[in-house]
Structure formats: structure tokens, C-alpha cells
């Protein structure tokens, strides 16, 4: 495996020294391009009080290519599918090498705060969301209760 670019080292250091509130990201011992990430559900969102596990992987072409991020915790969200894949523009077409792990994770946190059922990834969830938003939010809260409780 080729050596770690300086940028990755620098970002990792910064994530540790200057963490983002509500977000943790730690590189895996065996693979410094693989991060274990937790994101707290934003306040006033259905995901409040939940702590979501994610995995983040920096591909070889990073930062030219976006990092790969996926939810490990089950979540009821119109832009996140059953496998935890995330529909987010900065992870796809709107990626720019000026973005970083930190900014990507912040974007995901923001996505939790404002789901966008008009650009769905999980179609069934999005349908529910559009049909009956309040019950959908209830279901999201339930799921958060069920699956996203912080480990003690």
C-alpha cells in the first residue's frame, strides 16, 4: 500500500486535536484510511439523542475523489437506504478536493437535521415522508430509540 499522503495525516491530527461537536472520527489501527465515525443526532430533529455509527473510507485518489461513507446504525431517513448508503451531493457530484472529512461529516449531520424526501434514496421511506410527515418523523424517533442508543 502506498504511503499516506500528508493531507490525510494532517486531517486525522486535526480531527483529534480540534474535534467537531457531536462528531467523532477515529482511524482504524490497521488501516489509516478507514475511520470509525459517530454522529450525534442533531437537536430538534427526529434523531435527537441518538448516536449513529458510520464508517468512512478514504479511497486512493482522495482528495481528488470523495470519501466513501456509510451508516452502520439502522436509520429511518429518506436519503439513507437500508444498507446505510447516503444520498448527498458532496459525496457524489459536488465533491471538491477542498472538502475534508470534517466537512463531509458536518454535511451528513446537516442531512439528518433536514431530510430531503424530494431527492430520495430509500423510496419507501420518502413516500411515507411525503404522505404523512408526522408519522414518518415518529417512526424515525422510534428507530432512533431502538437502534441508536449510545453505548454505555
Amino acid at each position: 500500500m502506498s504511503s499516506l499522503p500528508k493531507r490525510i495525516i494532517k486531517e486525522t491530527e486535526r480531527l483529534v486535536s480540534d474535534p467537531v461537536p457531536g462528531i467523532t472520527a477515529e482511524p482504524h489501527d490497521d488501516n489509516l484510511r478507514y475511520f470509525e465515525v459517530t454522529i450525534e443526532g442533531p437537536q430538534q430533529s427526529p434523531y435527537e439523542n441518538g448516536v449513529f455509527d458510520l464508517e468512512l473510507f478514504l479511497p486512493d485518489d482522495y482528495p481528488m475523489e470523495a470519501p466513501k461513507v456509510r451508516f452502520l446504525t439502522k436509520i429511518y431517513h429518506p436519503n439513507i437506504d437500508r444498507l446505510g448508503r447516503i444520498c448527498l451531493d458532496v459525496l457524489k457530484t459536488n465533491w471538491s478536493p477542498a472538502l475534508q472529512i470534517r466537512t463531509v461529516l458536518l454535511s451528513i449531520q446537516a442531512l439528518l437535521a433536514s431530510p430531503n424526501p424530494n431527492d430520495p434514496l430509500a423510496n419507501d421511506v420518502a413516500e411515507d415522508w411525503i404522505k404523512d410527515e408526522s408519522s414518518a418523523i415518529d417512526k424515525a424517533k422510534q428507530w432512533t430509540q431502538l437502534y441508536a442508543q449510545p453505548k454505555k
Partner: protein
Amino acid sequence: MTTDASSQESKKRFFKDGLDSQEDSSELNLAFDNNDSILFGNRSFKNEVKIIPIDQEDNIAIDDLDENQRSTQNGFDRDEFLLQLQVIIPDIKRTEANMLYDMFKLDDNCIEKAIEYYFEISSKMDKGKVDNNMENDNDDGGEDVIILASSSSPDTSMKSSQQSQKISFGSVTSKKRLSSFEVFSQKKPKLEVRWKRFIGSLQVNAMATRPTTKPLKYGTKLKLVKPNSNVIPSKLYSDSGKKKKALSSYIKVFDMSNNREIGKIPEDIAQIIYPLLEKQEISFLLTLVYCDNKRLSIGDTFVLQLDCFLTNLIFDDEIISTSSSQENISSEFDKSSQDHIENQLEIENRASRLSHLALFKKLNLFPIIDEQKELKKIEELNDTVRDVIDLDDEIIYDNSNEIPMEEEGDKENVDHSLNLNQLMAFYNVTQSGNSLLNLPETQPSKDIFKLELRRYQKQGLSWMLLREQEYDKVSKYEYDSDKNATTMNPLWKQFKWPNDMSWDGQRNKESNSNYPDGLFFYANIHSGKYSMEKPTLKSLVKGGILSDEMGLGKTISTLATIFSAPFDREEKNHNELFIKERTTNNSFDSEIICKPYAYRTTLVVVPTSLLMQWSSEFEKSKNGDDIYSEIYYGGNVTSLKSLLTKTKNPPTAVFTTYGIVQNEWTRISKNTSNNSEALSGLFSVQFFRIVLDEGHIIRNRSTITSKAIMNLSSKRKWILTGTPIINRLDDIYSLVKFLGLEPWSQIGYWKSFVSEPFEKKDFKSAFDVVNSILSPVLLRRTKQMKDIDGKPLVELPLKEIFIEDIELSALQNKVYKYFLDRAESSVREGLAHGDLLKKYSTILVHILRLRQICCDVRLLGTKDDNDEDVNSNNQVVSDSVDVNKILKDLKHTTRNALNQDEITELSDKIQLKYFENGKLKSNECPICTTEPIDANNIIFTECGHCFCESCLQEYFDFQVQKKLETKCPNCRQIISTNRVLKLNHDTVENEPIELYCPTQKSAKIEALLKHLKVIQDQSAGEQIVIFSQFSSYLDILEQDLNEALSTKETIIYKFDGRLSLKERSTVLKEFTTKDLTKQKILLLSLKAGGVGLNLTCSSHAFMMDPWWSPSMEDQAIDRIHRIGQSSNVKVVRFIVQGSIEEKMLKIQERKRTIGEAMDVDEDDRRKRRIEDIKMLFE
């Protein structure tokens, strides 16, 4: 007899002494009774001349000299002459002396001439040994020649002992020498056939030319007669020795009993026999074996048996033939004395030589290849019967001859396909077999030489010392003349006497008993000389060719030799000895110039790049302060002559370059008079020893360098070269000439024995001769060779060579296509018109352009002085204009670039944002997070964001490759490479910001950078060598690498032909010093640094571009992969896919397999070139 040079002095004073003492002849006569040996050459012998009588007879004879023979012409009489001659040549025979007197009595310097003449003959006799006694005798004769020629005073003690030994042989050898002398002085001796020995029989179908009255009897003795024996040879032969007319009409068969003509023999036999018929060297016996028992009428055939014998004359006579024009010994005397030999004689000699050859072939006499084997076979087949050979039937071989015949045949088949590689292998075999294993090992003492030699280097040292005849310096070596004598002169062939199958021999067993015993006889089929004794090769040349493969330490071996024998011991006691030296150059031809002898100095001529290396190796290996070396640049030493000959402690070694030798020579030859360099420079002295490093530089004898080198003089000469043959077999000639290997150093000789056979595709004989010339003077070891214990000489770490395929960048590709089209159409045109070679230089330029593009488009604009492909050629000029236009066109295609107004506007914005007090603020690159961005590396987008140049470029490339839009990473505004700005460093004041021109790095440089990064990541502080043949490419590389790599981690050095000597050594010194924190990169020009350098500190090499000749690249790689290298070597060769470079690889491959030696003539070479070109553009 005034003398200015001491050499003259010693010799002439010598004679004067004799003259002076003529009044004291009684005293001299007295001395004859005194049997003490004289100290020959003792300079103070004037008052104590003692002469040893050689044998009693001669002694008396001198006393009995006839007073009447006194000649008054120049005050010399016979007595005096003989006495003086005997003083100088103690073992001369009276008859010989008398003869010399007769020859030279009219001459002014009669004694001098006579002595020269005498030694001339001795030295010749040396070449064709007659018997063992003679051999010993002549050893001295040969040495005397050297001593006289160089006039060094002989080693007295040794001499006298040898002389007394010689005396005991004197009487035995006298007869032989006598006969040779008689012939020489043109008094035809009575030729007497004392014995003859059978060499073979032929069955000949003769044709009757006269009718006979009755049938001829079986066994009738016949003879061959030349009816018109006074036919002038020039009528029969053309100048080249070929016959003009049918010779069969000149030879008749006579009946012995009634001396009557009977018939004639067929043309093919007549041709052979005619030149031999009256010489009596070979005698023929003719017997009738079949005539159908009837009367012969004209036109009838009858069968004869032709027995051939060699007579004693051919053996006695060998010296005569030596003296004839065949052996062109280049001494003044020879020339003058042989002027009168008619051309006819030459023609006759030549014809008879050819006849000998043809006859031997007809008789199936073939040289013996392995004497031991042959001896064994003779034992086994002692009683095999030999048949008469019937020419009309298939040739029947004698059993004992069968096997050599086959071997011969096999060899021929193989040799026809000999190529360069095989030739190399060929002399590998000759070298490794005997010399390597048997050589003793000599380690110079620690007092003089600090380094420890490897085993084979010790053997090499022994060999070199032996070649220089420094026998006592070689450890465990006892000088054994017999041992040396066993190497047969390779021009001679050994033949076995066949069993006597002659008519007489079979019927009368007793008749043949009078010939000498012995199983073998020897013949030099090239010169027509014969001998009963094994002719041995004595080379008088001190020196040779050390041709060890690259990296085996030729330098060290040579230095060890220099230290072991730093000065000429014979000369040590005579500081002011001058020598007579005839230079070979025409301008001095008739002139005899005197050069002082720098007997304590070795001149080492090296390529410029190696000058410092030699000097530092010298310092490293020496021990003691009184030994030192000097580097001679021409200007730095005011008078080399006085430094070397006048000072008390002259430098042991003087290092200089080929360029300096050449410069000095051109200046001298332009202006022969009043030239200070002629008087004090390299050409003003005779060195003790000259060493040519990379000696193949002189391979082309028509170059000025080569001519200049030939005119340096020294007593000992060495050539160091890993590749004695670069292109052609004739490359060796120059080396042979430099060494002065007689007779090969004469071009005529070389041509007729090497070049001509080679051109006639007679590779075997050409190589045989080359091998025979070289084997005594050439030592070659390769890395693969095994030493006595079967271990390889050198165990080098692994060498891996990778070829990395490169894809051209878009721009490069566009340009490449354009140039390829032009080149192809040019070649097609050339092929169509059939004048491809006329356009050769144009095509070369085309090819060069393509090769340059493969490296970097930027190379197109540059003119590279180092590239020899482009000469001062008009084509190039027009071409370079073209290049610029194309590049410009390509730039214009980049539409949409920022215009000047936009630039100014943006510039203001950027200055406002990023500058503070005229200085760039610290900025972080959003892509690589480097902070601050280096001012050299920063670029700004249209939208006013800044990045590292490389980061943004990488982004652009990535996006383009993924076919995505290029947006500013920061603000997502669409940006384009044409609309990017960078800081302008040249004019910081006026125009701080300019349009960024995307210098797309060449694909090769990109690939190289990747490799460098990997190496740096894996282990920091490596040293890396990068080769290219374009020095302007090295400039580009230097620039690009400097930009791409941080100066904290990398240091880049550049080494090419433009560097001065001092710079070269500094660069190498700095590069080779290991620095663990920094990656050191050496950009090395293939031409300047391809040879000689030692870069074992590095184990990574990159070859940026391929070269036509694979050996050049091998040489380059061997800079790294050589003794001293401890880690595995990795070499990466960058080759652009599907480009001309790939085809160059193919040509390289072909060169490797075919070898260029096969390009025998110009036509073939031309064809080869056309093929090459076709191959490039197919």
C-alpha cells in the same frame, strides 16, 4: 663523430675506443690470450679491454689474417675491423666477420653498419628457431637488439654469465649461422641436398605429347623438366602472383633413361609444381605406374606416381626466406640492403608460397591441432598403411589424418557464422583456459601499495609484470625460458611427417635412413618458412592489452603495476641518457630526433571524466610521500620535459587526457619549428610507460587523437579497454599498432592476414590470426569467469532491469503524430526514389525529433551540442523554425484564455487578497493542506482562490480523465487551465502576476517523479542516477525535478560534458557522500558519464531514453553495477509505447544478436542502415 644524445654517445664512443686502440693492437692481441670474460658494455672498459676468444680456431684465424687485405680507403683494414667487431660481438665467427667486412668495407661507419646488420640477422633468426642451442643463443641476440636500439647499458652481471654460456654453444651453432650469412651476403652457397623426407604422393594422369616406340615399363623413372627454364616470371604471373598462362605447357615429363620428352601433366598439378621445380626445397620423384601396356601415341593418358619430398634445403634455408621481402622488418638497414632485390624474386617467392599451400592441400597434409592427441594417435596407429592418393577417385584419407580433417571441417562450419559475441567468447576461451588458472598471484608490498588486491587482480598484476619482463617482481615465479618457449608461434603450423609411401621408400626401406628423426615438422604457411624445431613466439613488446570486463578493476591492476615497477631499473644509474627514437610520423620520417628518457614516469592517458578518478585512486593506493602524481593539462606545467627529466624526484605518474594529447599534437604538427610544446610537452620525452585507459578511443586510426597517441613514445605500453572491438575487427589494428606488435603493426600485414580474409568471409583464418596476435598480449577476464576454486571472479549483487512503458501525454502525442507523419513521408519518398541514404542525415534529424518528443516536447526547441546526430546541417535550422511554429500553433488552439485586461483586473484583486506589504501571505492549499504554499508553486484561479500548482494540475487532470467539469474546489465556479494565474518571478516589481501556462510535464518525467517518490518513501537518503543522452533534457529534468521535489529532501546534481574538470570532481564527490536525510539525484549524460565512472554508492538508475547501441547502455548501467556495489541494483528504462523508442529496442536486440562485426563492407553496412530505417518506420 660528435654526439649529442647519450644513446649515440655510448655507442659511438664505443667505436672510437676501438679506433683509438688500434695502435695498441699488440695489447689487444695479448688480451686474446686472457680467457677472462669481459663485462660487456662496461663503460669504463677503454683501458681494460678483455676479449674472450670464442673458439680456438677463430682465434688463430684472426692472427693469421692476411695483411694484404688491408684497405686504405677509410683507414680500416680487415684485422682492425675484425677485432673491433669481436670486442662488440664476442661470439661472432670469423667467417661471418669477414663477410661483414666485405660488405661494409666501403662504408664510412662500417662497423656500426656491420653490427646493426649482424643483430638484424640474429633477431630474424630468433623468429625461426633452428635448434635448442640456437634458441638460447638467439635469446641473447634478441635482447641485444633491444639494448642496442635503446642503447641502455645492459645488465652487466647477468650478461656476462649468459655470454660465457653462449660460448659453449658457439661451435655448435657456428655452422648454421655461417650458412645463413653466406646466403645473406649474396654469395650463393652451393645448395646440396643432403637428405629428403617423404611428405606425400599424388597419382597423376599425364598426357602423352610424344609417341613412344614401345610401351613404357611399370616403374620407369621419369622426371619433370622445364624446357624453357629461362622464362621470366613476370610473364607468367601478374603482380598479384596469379598466373597468367597455362603452366602445363611449361612442364614436361621426361624419361630419365633417355632424357626424352614423353608428355605433360595436368594443369592443376603443373600450377602447383612449376614454381617449386627448380628450387630443390621440395623434390619430386616421378614413377610410371600405368600406361595400359601399349605404345603411347599423342594424347594418350598414362598414370604416374608423384612422390613429394621435403629436402634439407627448405629447412636450412629458412633464414633466407625470412630475409626476403616477405618479412618486412622495418629497419633502415633492411630497406637499403634489400632495395636491389628484384620484383621478380618477390613474385617467385609468392608463387612458391602459394604452391606450398596448394601442394599440402593436395597431399592432405593438415596442421596438427592438438599435439598430445596426435602423439597418442601415432602410438595407436603406428602400423597403419597409407595409400597413394588417387586424384581421380574420391580422396582417401589416411586413418591418422582422418580425425583432424573432420575437426577442421566442423570448425569451418561453425566459424562461418561467427559473430561479434562469438569472437568475444573466442578470446575468452583462449584466455581463461591457461593463463588465468596458471598465473601466480602477486601482491605488491604494503610499503608501496596500500590496497588489497583481489585474487584475480593479483594474477592480473603478475601477468602485467611478466609482460613487462619484470620477472623478479612476480612472486613464486621462476623465470623459465623453456616454459616460455613452449608457446608456438601461432603463424606456424605443426605437421606430422607421413609414413614413407614413396615408390622408392616402399621398395627400398634403407634408402630413407639418412633424414633426421622426429615426428613433426613446422611450417609457416604464410611466409613459406619451414623448420624442424618448434618455432616459438618471442614478443619483444613490453606491455599489452588488459581487457578485463568493465568493473573488474583495470585501474587498480594498472596502478599496482605502476607501483611495483615505477621506474626503469636499467636506466636508474644514468640520469642523462638520451635515446634515439625514430618517430613514425611522416613529417619526421627521415629525421632522427632525440628525446630525453623520462625513465621514472608513467604517462596515463584517460578520458576527461576519469582524470580525477585516476588521480584519487592513485592517492588512495600509494603509500609514502615521495611517490606522487601530476595532472597535466598542458598549461599547468611549464616544462614537462624538465620536470620529468631534470628534477630529482619526478612524478611517478602523469595523468592527462586524450584531448590534451590531441591538442598538443595538432599544434606541433602545424608548426614544427620553434614550438615550445614540441620542446617541452608530452611529445618531447620518452616515457617509461604509457597507459591508455579506455584505449578503444584510438580504434579509428585516421582520427587525430589516434595519430597523436601513436606519436607518444615510451618503452612500455599498455591499453586498458573493456571493449577492444566496438564495431569492426579492424578496431584492433590501432591497438596493435600502438603496442608496436611487429609485424602486425604494419598495415599491409594486417590487411593481408586479417582484413582481407575477413572480407572474403574467411572468418576462421582471420580470427585465427587475430587470436594468435592477441593471445600473448591480451588478458581478458569476465565477471562470469571462475577462479581456480571454481568461484566466480566477482560476485555482484543482482541486477534487475525493468522496461516501463510510458504513454505520451496529450500534447506530446499530438506533436509526435505530426512529426511522425513528416518523417514517414520523407522515408517513403526516399525509398521510392531509391536515394534513401542521400537523405540519411535528414532522416536522422526526423528520427532525432521523434526521440526528443518521446522525452519532452520542450526538447524540440533546443539545440543540443552533445547530440552528434545533428551536425551543422541546414536542414536542422529550417527544421527548428518549424518546431517553434508547431508549438505556437498548438498553444493557440487553447481558446478562451484570459486576455490582458482580465489579467490586470484579477491581478489587482489577488494582490489585495493575498499580499501584505508586497509580500505573499501564508496560505493553505485546500487540496494538500500544505501551509504556506511556496511562492514558486502558487497559482490563482479566476475566482481568486489559490492552490499549489501541482495540486490544481492534478485536480484538472483527474477531472478531465473522469470527464467531469473543472470547478474551483473552493467555490465551484467553472475554471479552466487557460484561465489561471501565477506569480511572475522574473519581474516582481512591474508585473507580479502573469498567465499560467500549463507546462504539461512530459509523461516520462511524471513517471520518474512517481518512482522517486516511492524510493524516497521506502528509504530516505538514497542516491539515484538518471541517464539521458540529451544534455538539454538533463536541463529540463533538473528544472522540473527541482520544482516538483522539495529542496529539503532532495539535492540534484548534473554531470555532463559542459562541466569543467574541477566541477566534475566536486559533483561526484558530493554525490557519493551519503546523506541519510536527503535523496541525492545525479543527472548524468550518457556520453560524458557513460564510461569509467564509479557510482556504486547508488543502486537505482533510470534510463530516460534508449540509445542505438546496447553496449552503450550496458556501459552506463555498469557504472552502478560493478565491484563495490553491495545492494541489488534496479534499473528502470522508460520506453514510450508504440513509438520509435520501441523500435529502437528491437534494433538494439538485433545488434546484440548479430553483432556489428559482420558488417564487413560498406555495401553491407549500407543495406543494414536502410533496414534499420525501414524497421523504424514500418
